[in-house]
């Protein structure tokens, strides 16, 4: 792991942003992240949370599931959203929910109140981007953990370990999408439907953990890339990005860490 990378050849090293476990954020980091989400929820333009939520399902439907593009598309998705959030509050990063060890929804996402106001991570309004509301559409997010009792709940330690045992991208991608699907359906409510799920802010904590899993697996399997015939494929995001550009998280400016501690130097 590293905390700097060169964005282009011969460029000066740039400091990477660190994505952290939601349970390890300081009070200030969590408050900053909530503030970024809150500000993004306030925009009804391409800076807005609802615009990004709409990529995944209603109204744009650009997401990729159950195929080799699953991991690259969602990595790109988080990358673009994280930049938008950093435009609101510099330095914020997407936290991850480690459902391989945690048995329930993190407190940061379940507490009704936070910072003296409604917790924007617990419930969010749904305002579909540039689209008139239709009868039957949800107007706010909801969750119903265990609404299908036969769906196993977290922690998914065994499923995580099984994915990590894969020795090629195709198997890893499929094993990870399986446990990813299970978590979505276990959370239920908005998260249980592809087309609405990204309106719930917890979607991005879930997918940060999916992306982290890929990063960990990549480190253990250098060069184990997606199939060659999709590397040049453009992923449908705004703007588009190629699969090959998603393979190295350092080139996207971030890294995952369990802890981070920095002190001033001598200069």
């Amino acid at each position, binding site marked *: 792991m590293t905390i700097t990378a060169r964005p282009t050849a011969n460029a000066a090293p740039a400091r990477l942003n660190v994505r952290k476990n939601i349970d390890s954020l300081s009070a200030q980091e969590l408050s900053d992240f909530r503030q970024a989400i809150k500000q993004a929820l306030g925009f009804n333009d391409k800076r807005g949370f609802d615009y990004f939520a709409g990529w995944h399902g209603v109204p744009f439907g650009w997401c990729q*599931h159950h195929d080799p593009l699953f991991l690259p598309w969602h990595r790109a998705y988080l990358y673009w959203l994280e930049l938008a959030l950093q435009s609101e509050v510099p330095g914020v990063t997407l936290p991850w929910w480690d459902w391989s060890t945690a048995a329930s929804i993190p407190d940061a996402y379940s507490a009704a109140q936070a910072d003296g106001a409604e917790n924007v991570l617990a419930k969010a309004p749904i305002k579909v981007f540039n689209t008139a509301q239709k009868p039957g559409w949800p107007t706010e997010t909801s969750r119903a953990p265990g609404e299908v009792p036969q769906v196993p709940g977290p922690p998914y330690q065994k499923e995580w370990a099984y994915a990590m045992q894969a020795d090629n991208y195709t198997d890893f991608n499929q094993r990870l999408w399986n446990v990813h699907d299970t978590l979505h*359906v276990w959370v239920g409510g908005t998260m249980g439907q592809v087309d609405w799920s990204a309106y719930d802010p917890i979607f991005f904590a879930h997918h940060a953990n999916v992306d982290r899993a890929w990063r960990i697996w990549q480190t253990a399997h250098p060069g184990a890339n997606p199939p060659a015939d999709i590397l040049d494929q453009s992923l449908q995001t705004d703007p588009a990005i190629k699969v090959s550009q998603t393979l190295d998280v350092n080139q996207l400016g971030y890294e995952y860490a369990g802890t981070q501690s920095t002190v001033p130097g001598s200069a």
Partner: protein
Amino acid sequence: MQRWTSHALAVPPRSSWQRADLEFEGVEHDGASFVMHVFLNNPDADEATPRTPEQRYAGYLTVFAHGDCWGDVGHCDIPEPVSAFDRRPPHPLIPFNATLEITEPLGDLPDGTGEVTVTALAFNKNGDEADVLRFKQLTLLTYA
């Protein structure tokens, strides 16, 4: 609960393979999300059946599906390409293949019987569970 049981699938001798996968081909995901629990040679399995090796439980697959159609009429119909130059991305509702590795549970069956049936119990949240699991065909793959 929806129960689906396959016809018998051919199983080669245990000494001839190292890994076994069940591949559910053409799984549709245009309705409610669901989970299916899979048993081998246990066509009477139901919701109360313990998911244990003794009951020949083989594992589960969860399908994160799209839910009800939210668009206008025809929005969820999967279109054919309009020409050979149609480079639009695939429709998101195109069925997919779901793989369940069953190396251990298949290997635990008595060797030499030569065949196995697969029973899938499918559950969703809506209670309209007669039509939860829809797929084209099931294949048992073994690998040397």
